[in-house]
């Protein structure tokens, strides 16, 4: 591990000022991803500013929605009654991710900032433009079965690994930050970038810009998260899907859909969303929307399986959210979110 100076921040202002003045300084909160990457030699901060002690640990009512402090743990947010009842997809995404231990440690602001799980990013012997700009992309001609279908570039085909980010994107959460130029709000779907020719930049956050809270806007519809992975628990999504559905009588007033595991950021589906608005929910409609959604997918050598998988997942997520098909487990739990059942059992008793 590269040597670093450790500093504990007492205030957000101080944390921002400290990181801002040193180009290779970084924040650390839960550390579940950052410490691992430091051990791997992928992250090499010279100054580590510990923001885990900042008083950003509250979940509060905010402008008709919820404000989740940056340092609220993934566990605490997932089991919050407010989150579970009003933003069910958030609880489901959190509980279908990582392990209990990691959810206890990981912060809500840190979760969407975790780095890609592209294996080449973590392998210092391989070319990776995200880790080392200009070095190339080993995944392009490598084993790219977990890589992107949408929005990739010749420089990078990595996907974003966060489940939470997918749910926050579908719910149009807002990210409150404090940066060198003061506070600002960022619409969640704008937080992450596409790789383009600068894949080393995951987000639009400036150096020294600290997330202080995630704000969930008022929402009275139903939301749901579904995840397909290679084993029943404690694995990253191959493909995942978050749906935020608002009905108007029997018809869909508005639906927002984001896919995980298919792009460098949570992948919203504006075309499908437009097709569904104002319609009566039906499997036929959902399948048409799913077909449209994947029409412009660009598979790589090893990840074309994600197209039918993603289409079917999207249809199922819409069916379950709209009530046309029963959830697999209690809403707001990993059991509702895990396609194929959870650890140790295929079907979950209700």
């Amino acid at each position, binding site marked *: *591990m*590269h040597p670093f*100076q*450790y500093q504990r921040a007492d205030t957000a202002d101080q944390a921002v000022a400290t990181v801002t003045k040193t180009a290779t300084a970084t924040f650390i909160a839960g550390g579940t991803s950052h410490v691992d990457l430091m051990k791997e030699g992928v992250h*090499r901060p010279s100054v580590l500013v510990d923001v885990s002690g900042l008083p950003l640990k509250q979940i509060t009512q905010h402008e008709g929605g919820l404000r989740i402090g940056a340092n609220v743990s993934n566990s605490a947010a997932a089991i919050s009654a407010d989150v579970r009842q009003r933003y069910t997809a958030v609880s489901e995404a959190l509980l279908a991710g990582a392990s*209990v231990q990691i959810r*206890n440690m990981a912060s809500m602001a840190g979760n969407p900032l975790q780095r890609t799980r592209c294996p080449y990013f973590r392998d210092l012997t391989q070319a990776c433009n995200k880790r080392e700009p200009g070095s190339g992309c080993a995944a392009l001609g490598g084993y790219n079965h977990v890589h992107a279908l949408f929005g990739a570039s010749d420089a990078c085909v990595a996907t974003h690994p966060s489940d939470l980010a997918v749910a926050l994107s579908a719910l149009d959460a807002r990210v409150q930050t404090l940066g060198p130029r003061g506070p600002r709000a960022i619409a969640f779907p704008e937080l992450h970038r596409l790789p383009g020719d600068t894949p080393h930049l995951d987000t639009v956050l400036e150096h020294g810009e600290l997330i202080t809270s995630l704000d969930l806007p008022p929402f009275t519809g139903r939301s749901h998260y579904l995840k397909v992975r290679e084993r029943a628990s404690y694995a990253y999504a191959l493909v995942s899907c978050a749906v935020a559905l608002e009905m108007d009588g029997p018809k869909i007033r508005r639906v927002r859909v984001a896919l995980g595991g298919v792009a460098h950021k949570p992948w919203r589906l504006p075309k499908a969303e437009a097709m569904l608005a104002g319609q009566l929910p039906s499997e036929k409609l959902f399948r048409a929307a799913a077909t449209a959604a994947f029409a412009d997918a660009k598979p790589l050598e090893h990840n074309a399986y994600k197209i039918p998988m993603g289409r079917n997942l999207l249809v199922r997520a819409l069916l379950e959210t709209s009530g046309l098909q029963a959830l697999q487990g209690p809403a707001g739990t990993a059991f509702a979110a895990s396609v194929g059942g*959870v650890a140790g*059992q295929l079907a979950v008793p209700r």
Partner: protein
Amino acid sequence: MNQAPIPQAGDLAPDCVLPNGTRLLDLRGRPVILAFASDTWDPTLAHQSALFARLSADFGSAGAAFVDIASDEWQALDCRGALAERFGVAGQRALILLDEHGVVRWRTVVAPGQELRSGQVLAALEALNPATAPAAGPEAVAFQLSRRTFVTATLAAAALLLLPGCGSSESDQDSADEQAAATASDTVAVALTINGQAHRLTLDPRVALLDALRENLHLTGTKKGCDHGQCGACTVHLDGQSALACLTLAVMAQGKEITTIEGLAKGEELHPLQAAFLMHDAFQCGYCTPGQLMAATALLQDKTMDTGSGVEIREAMSGNLCRCAAYPNIIAAIQDVQRA
């Protein structure tokens, strides 16, 4: 110089000037260890510096004529330097042993990410075996001493190889910031509360809680499995919640109540879950067991979780891997305590 052949075992080592100005030739009559170190600092191995110091003290106090690790015979050398080039080990961690006559008796290169293996140490000892020693008669006694010297030296050298060296291929790429941090990688005072006891340590900030527990405080009940947050063997409680000690920097665990497997039993009285693990034969090799127990006890404390169903327990325990696959028995043990 570049064209000179690389000295192999049995060759007379070329005379070289060591960084401190000593000539190798001047060290004839004593065995010399040349240890080429890299700067790959691994906090999990930091405890070996203590071993290094202890070996030196122990052997020194025995009154024998052993190599003083602070003396000229010990050379921690920059693996990027000219000397490393000369000995054909540039960019690698390596150990080269010269006997009293200046002949290379043994040389080994440690592969990246590897430790010096005991087999390699044995091979080194074999190389210095009196039976194969070039000298006999009165010198045999001296050789006997040399051999013991070599035991000390090799063990210490093994430790040395794992410590930061003086050179780095990366230093020229590092920014001024990084260089500043590298030179100022100060240790920090760390106050930890573990199983109700206060501990004060001085640690490199890179040290993970897991390594602080095991290597500094010798609380070795907490196991190191993958060291990357994938197996759960290092599970401890932080403020009553399960957490991974391998992904927690020790310096960041200050102010938290840390509970380890050593803190679970009350004296001789086992925690009910420990007893249930015994009852249900919930382990084979036992390596994952401390982590399983810590994860499961936290689970039992968590009143928000319905642990009645085996399915929920399985899901909640998915962060703890068991290579022996004792899962059914682990689940049964947890359910037993839950029902009690």
